[in-house]
């Protein structure tokens, strides 16, 4: 993660997991930074290791390392909501770790109910949670909520997300290399939304003129990639080198993040009830679990993909449970799937991943040749 310097009086709020109410935080004059996919993939986790077991996922370990290390001093506060069991406990572990280091960060939190909407309507509960959160954020920000500011922030984020969606087209057409595309998109991730928009506008312009003929000619097979954490650039490059064209991304920090925005922003409670209820189904949003498998299968079919690669996060139990059912459904559709999983330091073991990706590409190539 490129930690940016404090900008004027704007407080920097570290948020996790992936889909915090960034519009709301921004509207209160603070800069939300989603602490996900932190890029120190091979860096040591010595601070985190004092608080988390080695068999904790890399997301939690790197996030903890960032917050507790000197780098984390850039933060003025934390905002979190529930996802998995590890992340549900993490804010308290961070608070305890910070206290041991003589530091403190304000922490605002809320709960997204996990039961599916088809079973129970928890809208009222979530609306109350959002209204309580506003009170906590007002204290963090030292200013009151303004409906006008909220609407303005929503429009900025709408612009950023729609630009990101525009960037999906050249990927789907096989005109850009996934490694370059993912790296460029990831660079915008921790920027304030105003800067994100500028970066994304530049990317849209540059990719509009990309021909990508050589890429298309050298393609062995078309794949969709999925996973809650973006692959390290070295691993994305392996996909390109194996001749696989990524025609669809279902990465949590990419397509799932910018896939949906509510139309009505007049009330933040209603806005976030809609936002979470209709969010792109994600492994980290338990209430969407029942529509998750079909969402991925639909994407694979829509993009005409021959295969799917899961960039799995080792020790992420939710992915463990999702993959066998997904693999089964894809098999019904004649689509092959490969699961890779990554822990802290895995990227150093590149050769093993290279062999598996190349074998998968070869298998898809043979299928396509024979089929």
């Amino acid at each position, binding site marked *: 993660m490129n930690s940016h310097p404090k900008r004027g009086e704007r407080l920097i709020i570290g948020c996790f997991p992936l889909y915090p109410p960034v519009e709301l935080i921004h509207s209160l004059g603070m800069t939300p930074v989603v602490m996900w996919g932190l890029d120190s993939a091979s860096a040591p986790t010595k601070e985190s290791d004092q608080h988390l077991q080695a068999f904790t996922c890399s997301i939690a370990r790197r996030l903890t390392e960032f917050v507790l290390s000197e780098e984390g001093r850039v933060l003025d506060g934390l905002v979190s909501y529930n996802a*998995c069991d590890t992340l549900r406990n993490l804010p308290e572990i961070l608070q*305890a770790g910070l206290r041991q280091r003589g530091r403190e960060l304000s922490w605002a939190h809320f709960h997204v109910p996990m039961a599916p909407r088809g079973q129970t309507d928890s809208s009222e509960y979530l609306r109350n949670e959002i209204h309580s959160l506003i009170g906590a954020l007002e204290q963090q920000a030292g200013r009151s909520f303004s409906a006008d500011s909220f609407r303005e922030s929503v429009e900025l984020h709408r612009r950023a997300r729609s630009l990101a969606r525009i960037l999906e087209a050249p990927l789907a057409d096989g005109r850009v290399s996934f490694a370059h595309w993912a790296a460029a998109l990831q660079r915008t991730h921790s920027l304030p939304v105003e800067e994100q928009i500028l970066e994304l506008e530049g990317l849209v312009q540059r990719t509009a003129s990309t021909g990508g003929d050589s890429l298309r000619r050298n393609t062995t097979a078309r794949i969709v990639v999925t996973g809650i954490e973006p692959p390290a650039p070295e691993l994305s490059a392996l996909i390109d080198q194996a001749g696989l064209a990524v025609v669809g991304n279902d990465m949590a920090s990419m397509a799932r993040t910018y896939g949906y925005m509510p139309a009505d922003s007049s009330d933040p409670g209603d806005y976030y009830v809609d936002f979470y209820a209709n969010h792109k189904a994600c492994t980290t949003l338990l209430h969407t679990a029942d529509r998750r498998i079909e969402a991925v299968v639909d994407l694979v079919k829509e993009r005409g993909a021959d295969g799917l690669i899961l960039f799995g996060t080792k020790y992420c139990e939710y992915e463990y449970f999702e993959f066998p059912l997904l693999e089964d459904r894809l098999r019904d559709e004649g689509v092959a799937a490969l699961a890779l999983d990554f822990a802290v330091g895995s990227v150093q073991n590149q050769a093993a991943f290279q062999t598996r990706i190349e074998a998968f590409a070869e298998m898809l190539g043979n299928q396509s040749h024979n089929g």
Partner: protein
Amino acid sequence: METQVQGPSLLRSVSRIGGMMRASFLDIKRQAAEGKKVVWVNGLPAFLLARGAGALVLHAEGLIAGMAARGEEKPFQQAAESFGLLPDACSYARSFTGAALIANGDVPLDESLDRDRYVMPRPDLYINVPGGGCGTGRLWGDTVATICNVPVFHLEPRVNWERSDVAANIEDFIRQQMELISVLEEITGRPYDWDLLKTVFQEVKRAITLRQEIMNLCRAIPAPASFFDMVASIGPVCHLVGVPGTGDLLQEMKDEVEERVAKGEGSVPGEKYRLYWDGIMTWPRLGVLARKFAALGACVVAGPYSHMIFLPRADKIDPERPLESIAYNLCDTTLNYDYRYRVEAITRFCREYAIDGMVMSETQTCRGINSHTFAIMEGVGKALQIPAVMIGGDSCDPRFYSDAQVDTRLQALLEAIEAKRSN
């Protein structure tokens, strides 16, 4: 290598629980074959509501823990792994997913194995009741329901981040239970039997109250029963809860404990150390661990898994108000609060049981239980100035357990306690 020495003095009544559990699973199979509805459940005993609908209740962890304690869990785990579940996934969930695959006929059972033990009757409904914010139950429930092609219902007792959250969480949990009752009416095709539920709750009240009294008696020095007795007695307040006969068993257990207190007899002969256990029981090593600790004069007296999870609020159980009773017992319990509250509660708990040291058992495949371990160890250890050690383990997968490691660390813990005493 297992330590071979004189074991603890286990309660006679406790030795009957395994047989009662096995008999219960056989009875479920028999009644299911006669056409009675079967509900599979995981987690906490809000599934009691299914008993009020006249359904048979098969509790996942109850089945798996018992099989793991007898070393019979492997075929379930192999079935789950053939399905694609990785060994780092929750071993309760993984094993039960294997049980579903076998019940559904998706994975054939080795012919040398006893079908009565391994092939469960297929469910008509799955209910997930996670405790302490556990999210794994959601995926576990969905997976098993998908395999068996049955509906799934998720209850969610929400975490109390502040004391003021409790009232709203209880109110919302009662609402969720009402929704479950509607689903149960659809499944059984008849109106919900509130009178039956209240009758069930008479037995529940008796069983839970007796177990609480037994736990209180175990504050005596030496402790008349150990943590290992108490984890074995989870069955009567979980899978068997509300079933006639469980109250009688717990009464027998209480009588034995009272007798020991009166005679000054301990569970561990010559009790020298009183220990706290954090984490889920490593079921496949239940006997090994009980003997190992006893051999060194160490009595593991109590822990949250045995004392704070399964209907721990006997005071809040009112047979006339079953939904409120369940809501309090799921929402207003120690493990449903934030870490600071838990540290305070566990500190008080360790004082009440005169604990000398803490054994933090890593339940390696349970993220919910595990992640606070260092923080609890630090918070409680500092407050009470008592030593603690971490040992490897897991609820149902013995691959995460090492005898040699436990021997070394236990020795270190006892030495630390001795050093503190001599100072």
